[in-house]
């Protein structure tokens, strides 16, 4: 079992879990196991062609997978995977994806009155 560390901006999609156990012989398989467990993560990490998004930095035992064999990099049981987000003091790429990806999340507008009369409130 390999451990994958989730940065806090992505923990919304892992029910708050900071570390996830994943299985697989390669980084690609381990990541697939991750998104199977937490499907909401998929669109934040991969594009439609199932390539890692260019803003997602993925490290295995402190090394950037792009400097190894990318998604084909072999993974052993005691390896440690980590996602490194770009943050700038309130701005995250990860949040950006959360904001711009269509579909995936559902919900309805909170039921509130549509007819508004502000006079009472404004007179106060």
């Amino acid at each position, binding site marked *: 079992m390999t451990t994958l560390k989730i*940065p*806090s901006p992505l923990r919304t999609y892992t029910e708050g879990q900071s570390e996830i156990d994943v299985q697989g012989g390669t980084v690609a398989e381990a990541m697939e196991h991750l998104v199977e467990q937490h499907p909401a993560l998929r669109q934040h990490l991969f594009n439609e062609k199932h390539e890692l998004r*260019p803003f997602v930095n993925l490290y295995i035992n*402190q090394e950037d997978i792009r400097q190894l064999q990318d998604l084909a990099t072999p993974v052993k049981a005691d390896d440690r995977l980590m996602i490194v987000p770009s*943050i700038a003091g*309130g*701005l995250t790429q990860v949040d950006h994806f959360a*904001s711009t990806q269509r579909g995936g999340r559902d919900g309805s507008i909170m039921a509130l*009155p549509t007819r508004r009369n502000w006079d009472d409130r404004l007179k106060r």
Partner: protein
Amino acid sequence: MTISDNGNVDLNHEEILRYSRHLLIPEVGLAGQKKIKASSVLVIGTGGLGSPVAMYLAAAGVGRIGLVDYDQVDASNLQRQVIHGTSGIGTLKVESARQRMLDINPDIQVDVYNEPFTSANAMRIAQDYDLLIDGTDNFPTRYLTNDVSVLLGKPNVYGSIFRFDGQVSVFDARGGPCYRCLFPEPPPPGLVPSCAEGGVLGVLPGTIGTLQATEALKLILGIGETLLGRLLLFNALDMSFDFVTLRKNPNCKICGPNPEVTELIDYEEFCGVPGHDHEEGSVGGGWDIEALQLADRLRAGENIHLLDVREPHELEISHLEGSDLIPLGQLAARLSELDSADEMVVFCKAGTRSARALELLASAGFRKVKNLKGGINAWAKDVDPSLPIY
């Protein structure tokens, strides 16, 4: 790597007493303290990160410290920007910071630059300093700071924070990677929450800023192992410190062997976001509505759909009666719930997220939509003082 020699500086008796705890450390000693006194550091941003950096470097006796910031002290800064105090609200941040630093240590020189750090002034400001400290809060200024550091051949002590996460590194393209090697491209323009809207645990910039100050002193002294080639990842919730290895990117657009970037560029265009928050809160181009204008139209009985794009927990702080909530992060997926035939006003806390929401709505064909300029905070200020400003 020693970044400054100690020249002809000397320490008088008062300074020897002041710095005695440094002089007692063999790795610093009298020679090291002279190096610190002879050094100069430019601190870009005097906010959450810049506060501890500037205070500790002043206390340590860095001979000349430059401060760049165009902003004024606001009450909402004081939760984390500990260099400023309540009595300084409304004053220039660089002046407020200088006063505090000279109170800590009157023997140093503090140069202030009360202006945004831009492509137009950055090289001129930075060229006279030994090293740069990135205490900024946005991507455009981070890429600018990096490129200045690479082009001038000076170390850049990087620190960045978000909510509970912090990152620290030392970039120096002369012997290691730069910020662009780690993050070649900024996040694409779009629906990103601004610094003012993202939130941050108040002590986090203290933790990260003091680490930056530590790295700066090590660079000045030429001691220890700096974070050059390593990225420190801190998480306050887990209380974890992780490191990853950073390597020079052979395809780096500024520090690689075939650089495309050979002079400063337009970083706001590069990142697709404004570099400083003076432009925040409005969209421009006739897409904004002032709080008073909106109040008049509602008072006149107009049926206007008020769309709140903040997060659910912000409703507990303030709320506009009759508004609907769709957090910005869900808007793209929930457009079908909105009717483009409705007159609509979108709002958030201060107008930044709603400006992003408006861009999204406009690109989806919504034409009868306006952005509440300055957000619910402007409404609280101009229309309904019973609401708090946050």
